[in-house]
């Protein structure tokens, strides 16, 4: 019996043991601790979760978060589809350029990009100043410090997240299939609606889930571009932790988020292997 156990034991696991231990200690343990806090603080029980149906503030908070994330997902995926489609049909050299620009924006810090929007769209920002000096408007338009501002910032940030899975999906489609459709008498539009769109459905679903999941945790963008008027779950958690010190509520919200993200990731993985989303391995 000991011999089979010994044979099953692969000594190379020893090599990853320190890292595994570190992850367990520094990452998994705190997460479990949070899950634990949500049912123990301030007193043991499901009291924290009960607030979800009782507190108007919390209901409004979750509704705002879901609404903002859904709208962001819709626009980011629609615009991302256009970008990905254009990239697929561009010449090889142009495609490389477009991909570089996309990746650069992907890598720029969310803080920098959020402040850029503030400079562009603020009351005295570039867009309002230009429109006023041209005479199109007399009073500045409120682009920021409201939900529109949050949506603009989030959609902009999320487009690369939508483009990459869509590109991976579109690359896998044999262009001869579209030629076949044309040869069978379908116009360009018919070919797109009846053949291309259905074939990119897995990419659209993957992109939507990815964007939605990533949007759920947005903190900086709603805080800055929302001007305190658009309260999303991440910001609320931070307030609960740092200002009102109600760790139980914060832990409950964090747990809800964690569980929904894991659930969505599970669905996402069924549509597209996670590894292929960032274009590393298209096959």
């Amino acid at each position, binding site marked *: 019996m000991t011999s089979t156990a010994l044979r099953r034991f692969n000594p190379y696991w020893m090599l990853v043991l320190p890292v595994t231990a570190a992850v367990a200690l520094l990452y998994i343990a705190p997460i479990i601790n949070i899950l634990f806090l949500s049912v123990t603080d301030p007193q043991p029980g499901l009291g924290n979760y009960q607030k979800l149906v009782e507190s108007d503030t919390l209901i409004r908070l979750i509704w705002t978060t879901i609404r903002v994330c859904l709208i962001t997902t819709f626009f980011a995926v629609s615009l991302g589809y256009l970008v990905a489609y254009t990239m697929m049909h561009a010449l090889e050299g142009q495609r490389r350029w477009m991909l570089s620009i996309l990746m650069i924006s992907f890598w720029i810090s969310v803080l920098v990009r959020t402040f850029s929007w503030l400079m562009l769209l603020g009351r005295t920002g570039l867009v309002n100043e230009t429109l006023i000096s041209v005479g199109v408007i007399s009073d500045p338009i409120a682009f920021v410090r409201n939900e529109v501002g949050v949506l603009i910032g989030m959609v902009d940030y999320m487009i690369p997240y939508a483009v990459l899975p869509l590109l991976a999906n579109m690359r896998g489609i*044999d262009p*001869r*299939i579209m*030629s*076949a*459709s*044309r*040869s*069978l*008498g*379908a*116009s360009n539009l*018919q070919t797109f609606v*009846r*053949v291309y769109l*259905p*074939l990119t459905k897995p990419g659209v679903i993957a992109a939507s889930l990815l964007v939605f999941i990533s949007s759920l945790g947005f903190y900086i963008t709603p805080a800055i571009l929302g001007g305190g008027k658009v309260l999303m779950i991440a910001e609320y958690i931070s307030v609960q932790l740092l200002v009102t010190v109600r760790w139980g509520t914060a832990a409950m919200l964090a747990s809800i988020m964690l569980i929904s993200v894991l659930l969505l990731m599970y669905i996402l993985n069924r549509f597209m292997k996670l590894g292929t989303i960032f274009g590393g391995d298209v096959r």
Partner: protein
Amino acid sequence: MQESETGTRQGPSQYLKMESSGKKYVRHGDLVLQGLTKKFGSFNAVDSINLTVRNGEFLTLLGPSGSGKTTLLMMIAGFVDPTAGQIILDGSDISNLPPEKRNFGIVFQGYALFPHMTVEENIAYPLEVRHQSRSMISERVKEMLDLVQLHGLGSRYPRQLSGGQQQRVALARSLAFGPRILLLDEPLGALDRKLRVEVQNELKDLHSRTGTTFIYVTHDQDEALSMSDRIAIMDRGQIVQLDGPTALYENPVSVFAANFLGKSNFVRTTIMDIDKTGMQFRTGDFLIRQKIRQSGLAIGNKATLAIRPEKIRILDPSKSEKFNNSTNAVIRRISYFGNVLEIELVAPSIGEITASVPAWQFQGSHSPGQSVTLCWDEDAAVIVRDDDAVGET
């Protein structure tokens, strides 16, 4: 390059009749290509091709990769814009018509079936985009499934079918709307050898049952020979020769044509004598007599003779009666191919010669190093244009 139809020496009788009754006579449904050219930069992928595809015929474009055959097919289909020239069907120029307006069926390499649709939905697709009635569509789909013998598989998805079955779905789909012409781009490339022969027969059968014009692109000479009414051999964007399979095989016009369709021996000679019944050629001190009558040649001209390996006879030198066109040779190598033996010989008078003989007849009776006599009949050789030798005819 010599264009085709005037070069027809023999072929299926219907074309012979047609072409002798008037060279430029175009029937209803004939597809006429005039000076069709496609340039990619300075490279002529297709170089001013003139070709009339007869209504209802099975025409094969045969050539090595890069010969422009697929580009030509895609121009006919409408996916590649010609740089110059016209594509004419029933008197109107269709060169600028988009593919969906041409009503040509295309079977692509790799079939290009719609993976998200069932077999039935694939076949119904061309009818649906034409807004046919439901009842008409379901009737037609059934008809097409019967035609390609796939009844019972209508609700499967393409990925659940074998390569041969996918091939048939592609055929049914592109024939479902009754196309004017069916274009096939190396459709058998993905199939294994045995299946390929089977599908060849089915294709031929389908062609005769539907009566649709087939334009078939391949680099495989066996496919071309076994299925086609006419074959156009292509090289470097041009049609080298256009004729029926028999005529092409028996009377190649150039070294390239002789080599691409089958194998051939080439003997470079000088014309010594021309009379009413034929010509006499000389290479070294070997005199060759052939019953060839070809105008435009004079005594003293150089001529390259092409002789198919199976027309070379190998005789035992001891009982060698005096055959015409016979010379001594030594066997260098024998390769066994099951049905035939390929015997490589070296003849002092003409150099290397390959003979192909039935294996059952010759198995074991010859060996490398043996001295033999080789000869061929007076109608075995043809004069071909030598593309490599400049200044010769």
